[in-house]
């Protein structure tokens, strides 16, 4: 079977959802939807044995073969791992949502359509081998995330959060598209596999670094890295199942995926290592630090997600060092990254679900109002505790293992000597450790403040009680996984992590089993990780206990300096600011616009005329000056003067007629009798028209033009006049090729059976012009008729289609 089609299974299923939702009222729509991720999970799991041996599977569906764009599903260790996460967590989330989303009150039809759309998008992102379709799915995740965050679209915050997340992630997506385009130029292919194969040649390409930076912009925005993370907390306006699914377990990991996937291409560059590791660590620190500031349960989790994503990111960066240093400890980092990614998906998904349950059962997520819930919600508490402790990095939970590996990797960075790491390398373990302390603190803060301490049930909107069992199933499963993994880390390692690591660093290992890493909970007293963990717990506990003392310090950061404020200012700027900018030049006056036009034209053309050495004056080619010509020129100038300076309407119109007659005279002088005749008659009719049309107009007035106005007008009009004259002289002086007119003179009698060349040109040689020129006249006729006769009246300012 072409399993690439399975990517589309959810979205095809989504087409049925509104129908099911409308027709089958008795059963929660979620039950139907649940089938999709479950089936997919089962199917994709069957690939496990294949990738475990380092194999891969490809299935392709062509889209635009002539450009090399196709839907290609490429399943190797890395994409399979993500695929299983997407479908696995997806199943649990849908199950959870069945109990979370009210069948009566919520628009489940739309909800599940968006969710299924997202599932397709996410599967597409991680399986696509073709960068263009990868981009397609990438944007689709942004769009479905937009729709899901804005699910409660009547709430201002939902709309705001939806837009914010879309703006930031789409921006990243576009930059990533730029990177893909650059890569396609460099490697002449859209296929990631082929690009990886060409990786050694790509490095020396001048666009290499640009592509690298653009790609990372895509990854960092999606994975909420500093400073782009600001969309993630606002994304918490989405229904909680969405937060658990998109904004912690899957979509935000797309950036991680991207970095992992492109490591074979960019990993060897120092820029890559520095950026990925550095930004990752900064994000880790920043997120964990600000998590303690939050008071909303979901906001704490959002910041924690930001910080954990930073952690994984920094590990991937550190893992890339193994291209330069063979020490096993560097290979360790990549392993740890994947390991932590799995663990994070499990514990954070669970925690989000618990936050949703608390919200559901107590009516609030404000941690200041919560407390002492343990007694009424024991199961929730257990799950929350497991998740939090795992997040804090304590045994016997999976987080402990990967966290310790993380600390080890950071410590190992000290030993790396390239790219200035010998100078700055010491910073990495320090930042990592401090961030871990805060991680411990916010983990405690989350679970203890909510479940322990004083009962404040009177402050809660609803009387709390334990959630229905259906809602608890999913978090309980996740909690079980968290514990299970701690005891069988190497099974997970063999089945999932090693194949993924192999995919990230294909050149370093012959097959997944060649990766020589064995995870142990206990490394002996000599291990740096152990002591660091002990330190984390000690300081973390201290910090947690003193939270009331130092939490107010956060208020010292002025709001105006926050990144959120920066975003808000940008959006405000894009509305009000742009409006103000636009008003600067959009005066609404036609004169202004014409001034821009004329000034631009005349200045540009005159300047270019001299810049391009195009101004030539060759008097030899000119015809002799004649008396009648000169006299008529004077008459014409005088008439023009009358038109410009006339004080009365009538005089101006007649002067214009005078100009026309004098032009007709020129036609006589320069041997154009047809023109002269036509001009004379037309001028007469025109003057009559002018008089008819303007009989009602008031007397000529300057309408209070100032001297300055007039001066500007004069300068601009003079420069237009000068431009016309100069170009005319130059063009006439550079007649380089004789006109085609000779042909008409030769053939008018013989071929066209005529004598008046001008007329024959008009009706024969260029009769087509004439045909449409009379069309212009005809349209002018009906236009005048229409303008005069038709007066649709409607009251302003009502608008269209009345």
């Amino acid at each position, binding site marked *: 079977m072409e399993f690439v089609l399975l990517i589309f299974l959810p979205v095809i299923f989504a087409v049925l959802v509104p129908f099911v939702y409308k027709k089958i009222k008795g059963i929660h729509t979620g039950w139907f939807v649940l089938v999709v991720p479950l089936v997919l999970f089962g199917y994709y799991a069957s690939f496990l044995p294949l990738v475990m041996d380092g194999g891969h599977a490809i299935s392709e569906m062509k889209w635009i073969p002539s450009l090399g764009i196709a839907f290609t599903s490429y399943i190797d260790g890395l994409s399979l791992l993500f695929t299983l996460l997407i479908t696995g967590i997806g199943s649990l989330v849908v199950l959870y949502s069945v109990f979370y989303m009210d069948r009566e009150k919520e628009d489940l039809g739309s909800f599940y359509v968006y969710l299924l759309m997202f599932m397709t998008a996410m599967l597409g992102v991680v399986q696509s081998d073709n960068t263009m379709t990868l981009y397609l799915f990438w944007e689709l995740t942004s769009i479905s995330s937009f729709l899901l965050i804005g699910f409660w679209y009547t709430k201002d915050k939902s709309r705001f959060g939806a837009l914010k997340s879309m703006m930031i992630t789409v921006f990243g997506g576009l930059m990533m598209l730029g990177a893909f385009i650059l890569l396609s130029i460099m490697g002449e292919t859209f296929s990631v596999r082929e690009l990886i194969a060409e990786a050694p040649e790509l490095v020396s390409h001048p666009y290499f670094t640009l592509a690298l930076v653009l790609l990372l912009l895509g990854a960092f925005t999606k994975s909420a890295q500093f400073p782009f993370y600001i969309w993630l907390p606002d994304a918490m306006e989405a229904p909680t199942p969405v937060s658990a699914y998109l904004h912690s377990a899957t979509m935000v990991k797309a950036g991680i995926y991207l970095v992992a996937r492109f490591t074979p291409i960019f990993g060897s560059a120092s820029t890559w290592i520095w950026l990925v590791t550095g930004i990752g660590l900064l994000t880790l620190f920043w997120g964990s630090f600000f998590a303690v500031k939050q008071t909303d349960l979901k906001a704490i989790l959002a910041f924690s997600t930001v910080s954990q994503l930073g952690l994984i990111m920094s590990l991937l960066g550190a893992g890339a060092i193994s291209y330069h240093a063979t020490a096993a400890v560097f290979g360790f980092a990549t392993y740890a990254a994947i390991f932590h990614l799995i663990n994070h998906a499990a514990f954070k998904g669970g925690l989000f679900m618990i936050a949703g349950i608390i919200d559901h059962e107590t009516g609030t997520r404000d941690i200041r109002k919560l407390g002492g819930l343990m007694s009424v919600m024991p199961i929730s508490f257990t799950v929350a505790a497991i998740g939090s402790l795992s997040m804090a990095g304590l045994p016997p939970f999976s987080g402990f293992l990967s966290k310790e590996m993380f600390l080890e990797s950071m410590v190992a960075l000290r030993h790396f000597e390239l790219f200035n790491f010998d100078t700055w390398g010491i910073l990495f373990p320090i930042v990592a450790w401090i961030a871990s302390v805060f991680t411990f603190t916010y983990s405690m803060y989350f679970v203890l403040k909510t479940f322990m301490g004083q009962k404040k049930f009177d402050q809660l909107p609803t009387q709390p009680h334990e959630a229905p069992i259906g809602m608890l199933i999913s978090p309980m499963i996740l909690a079980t996984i968290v514990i299970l993994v701690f005891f069988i880390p190497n099974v997970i390692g063999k089945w999932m992590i090693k194949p993924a690591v192999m995919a990230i660093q294909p050149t370093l290992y012959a097959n997944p089993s060649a990766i020589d890493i064995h995870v142990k909970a206990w490394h002996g007293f000599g291990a740096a990780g152990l002591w660091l963990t002990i330190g984390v717990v000690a300081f973390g506990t201290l910090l947690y206990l003193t939270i009331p003392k130092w939490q107010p310090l956060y208020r010292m950061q002025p709001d105006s300096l926050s990144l959120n404020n920066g975003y808000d200012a940008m959006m405000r700027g894009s509305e009000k600011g742009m409006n103000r900018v636009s008003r600067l030049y959009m005066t609404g006056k036609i004169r202004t616009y014409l001034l821009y036009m004329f000034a631009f034209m005349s200045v540009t053309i005159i300047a270019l005329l001299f810049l391009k050495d195009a101004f030539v004056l060759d008097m030899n080619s000119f015809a002799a*000056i004649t008396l009648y010509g000169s006299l008529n020129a004077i008459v014409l100038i005088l008439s023009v003067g009358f038109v410009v300076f006339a004080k009365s309407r009538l005089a101006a119109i007649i002067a214009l007629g005078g100009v026309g007659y004098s032009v007709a005279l020129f036609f006589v002088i320069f041997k154009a009798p047809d023109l002269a005749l036509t001009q004379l008659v037309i001028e007469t009719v*025109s003057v009559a028209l002018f008089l008819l049309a303007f009989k009602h107009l008031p007397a000529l*007035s300057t309408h209070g033009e100032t001297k300055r106005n007039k001066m500007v007008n004069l300068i601009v009009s003079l420069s237009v006049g000068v431009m016309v004259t100069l170009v005319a002289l130059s*063009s*006439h002086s550079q007649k380089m090729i004789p006109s085609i007119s000779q042909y008409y003179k030769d053939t008018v009698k013989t071929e066209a059976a005529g004598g008046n060349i001008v007329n024959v040109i008009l009706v024969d040689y260029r009769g087509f012009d004439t045909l449409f020129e009379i069309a212009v*006249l005809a349209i*002018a006729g009906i236009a005048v008729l229409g*303008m005069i006769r038709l007066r649709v009246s409607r009251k302003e300012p009502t608008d269209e289609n009345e």
Partner: protein
Amino acid sequence: MELILSILIGILFTAAVYLILSRSLLKVILGTGLLSHGAHLLILTMGGLGGTAPPVLIDGVTDFADPLPQALILTAIVISFGVTAVMLVMAYRMYAVHQTDNMNELRGNDEHD
């Protein structure tokens, strides 16, 4: 002769643009009239002014003025006549509705900014 005509055309354009930039609707329209005169003369000039006879076949005459620009001008004249008529009536209707011929008072307001 081309020199004089070129300068003349320049003057026509200057006057035309000056009028078009003014505030009075009538002057603006007069300006467009001058503009088309200038353009037509320019076409004629660009064809060369040296011909000694009209481009009509008469035995014995060989040095015609260039007929092609003349044909183009004829087309252009008729077109500008049509356009001018439309513009005149439009101006006239506009005055009837807005009761002003001051271009400055005809600002397009950017509604709902």
